[in-house]
């Protein structure tokens, strides 16, 4: 049953093929046997999951079961979960029991899902390889010498390895789409403001957005439907109705205008990746889409823009971790300032500290205009590029990443090489646009992702395109070898 998608599980649960308790028990066994190889989990909440599953079964018996009732999922360890460790994979929060649920967690609970645990990630979502975790790196299920991508690496690995049918993630510069591409699953980053940020520990507030990691576009539609919506606790949440994303999955792609930015097919893109992505775009053309070339002239500046804006916001967002009200506090210190410095020096990992330093620098007197203000202006230019493109096309398509999954440790010595991994994904975050990564082939046995980006609040269209593509291809159904391991009860 672990091979089934959420949509399939939903039907099986409804028709009584098995109960949520049976499904949960089975997946918990897999999490226990296969999880450690991947290091995908920070916390497994077995008991809680079985309780929730039993309740879900009771609701179904009472005729009160929605489509997600009894479906096991996991949350990235950046979402606050009431009574459960919420560490952000950081030593500074390794004792933090959240006293409340994030809105996303609450909504998915409300929809009847069963939480199996919390997944590993790059510390505070800062990273592209999941190597920046205080709990150690996550491994790619397709090749355990390689990274799963980041920062939602644990969620991606767990879903790719068929430990769970779906997981939440967050995407600030590609942190859902990039690991989805590198692990061969479907990742959706919604429009900024579509999903509440309340209870999602902030990295860069003007870029962060919660989304889904699943094995199909249909599953993403089901999860997004439950997660999205206005939240009065989040001032940046959009007061917009949530459409029935499943209802339009099968819409025709006839006449759909897809723009392919020439800037996405630069020298940095590995030729084999390029071939796979071009084939996928051709597939969309066969489905009725009209393909044209477009330009996003300022895209080349998206990474430097991001590495000013995101660190600036993070340097401020992470000031609350001071050892006073929650989290780690250094054991020995001379005075107040020393307590702050030691607590934070010990509590944060190297990449987080680098970004806090950069962010502090670009906001400081004398540098604000040259860096922060300048980056905000370039951000406007990048957003304007997208806006101009969406006047002539409905959707933008290209690669999610320049290369397939790289080896563990390959880029840890050079932050800039690591940052450039996100060159194709960051633009959507800067402009607040929805984006998806969909499996579209393999290079040397490693998955490759096709990225599609739409205009604000066009998630229904993105899901429709991804779904139609998945109806005529089977890349998304391929499972890594290791997924066949574990206890086989199906």
């Amino acid at each position: 049953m672990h091979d089934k998608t959420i949509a399939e599980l939903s039907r099986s649960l409804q028709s009584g093929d098995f109960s949520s308790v049976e499904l949960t028990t089975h997946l918990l066994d897999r999490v226990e046997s296969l999880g450690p190889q991947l290091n995908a989990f920070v916390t497994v909440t077995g008991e809680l999951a079985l309780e929730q599953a039993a309740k879900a079964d009771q609701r179904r018996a009472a005729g009160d079961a929605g489509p997600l009732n009894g479906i096991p999922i996991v949350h990235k360890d950046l979402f606050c979960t009431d009574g459960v460790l919420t560490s952000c994979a950081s030593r500074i929060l390794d004792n933090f029991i959240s006293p409340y649920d994030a809105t996303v967690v609450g909504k998915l609970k409300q929809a009847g899902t069963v939480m199996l645990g919390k997944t590993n990630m790059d510390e505070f979502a800062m990273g592209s390889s999941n190597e920046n975790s205080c709990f150690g790196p996550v491994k790619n299920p397709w090749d355990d010498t390689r990274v799963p991508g980041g920062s939602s690496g644990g969620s991606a690995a767990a879903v790719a390895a068929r430990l769970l049918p779906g997981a939440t993630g967050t995407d600030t510069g590609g942190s859902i789409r990039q690991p989805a591409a590198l692990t061969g699953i479907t990742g959706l980053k919604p429009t900024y403001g579509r999903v509440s940020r309340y209870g999602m520990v902030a990295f860069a507030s003007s870029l962060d957005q919660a989304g889904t990691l699943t094995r199909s576009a249909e599953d993403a539609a089901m999860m997004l439907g439950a997660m999205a919506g206005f939240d009065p606790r989040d001032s940046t949440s959009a007061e917009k109705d949530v459409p029935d994303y499943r209802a339009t999955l099968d819409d025709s792609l006839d006449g759909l205008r897809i723009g392919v930015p020439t800037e996405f097919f630069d020298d940095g893109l590995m030729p084999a990746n390029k071939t796979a992505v071009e084939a996928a775009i051709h597939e969309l053309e066969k489905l009725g889409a009209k393909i044209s070339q477009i330009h996003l002239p300022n895209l080349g500046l998206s990474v430097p823009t991001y590495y000013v804006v995101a660190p600036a916001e993070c340097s401020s967002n992470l000031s609350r971790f001071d050892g006073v009200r929650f989290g780690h506090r250094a054991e020995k210190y001379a005075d107040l300032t020393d307590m702050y410095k030691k607590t934070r020096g010990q509590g944060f990992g190297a990449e987080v500290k680098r970004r806090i330093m950069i962010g502090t620098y670009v906001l400081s007197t004398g540098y604000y205009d040259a860096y922060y203000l300048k980056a905000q202006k370039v951000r406007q230019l990048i957003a304007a590029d997208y806006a101009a493109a969406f006047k002539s096309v409905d959707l933008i398509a290209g690669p999610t990443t320049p290369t397939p999954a790289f080896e563990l440790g390959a880029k840890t010595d050079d932050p800039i090489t690591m940052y450039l991994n996100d060159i194709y994904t960051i633009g959507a975050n800067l402009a607040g646009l929805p984006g998806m990564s969909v499996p579209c082939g393999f290079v040397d046995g490693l998955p490759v992702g096709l990225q599609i980006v739409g205009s604000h609040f066009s998630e229904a269209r993105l899901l429709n395109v991804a779904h139609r593509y998945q109806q005529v291809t089977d890349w998304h159904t391929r499972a890594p070898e290791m997924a066949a391991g574990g206890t086989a009860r199906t």
Partner: protein
Amino acid sequence: MSLSRNEMHNIAHLARLEFAEEEVAALADDLSRIIDFVEQLSQANTDDVLPMAHPLEMVQRLRADEVTETDQHRKFQQNAASVEEDLYLVPKVLE
């Protein structure tokens, strides 16, 4: 450009971060390279461009002035390193 030791010290102090002596050289090098990298932004012509702080053109929503919270300080303070008489304790604050 490269960050001087003094600048490093000032930024680390503003950010309240302590670094081990052996970390400092490598960190200064990383930071200098990152700053060089973002320096590319200066090439962009941004005359007459307004800074963009939010991805969506929305305005601030206002909350009704209502008290809906109940006292949960005992629960919240379970996460704190040091609490006495309902107060969070910190090393003596200098006046």
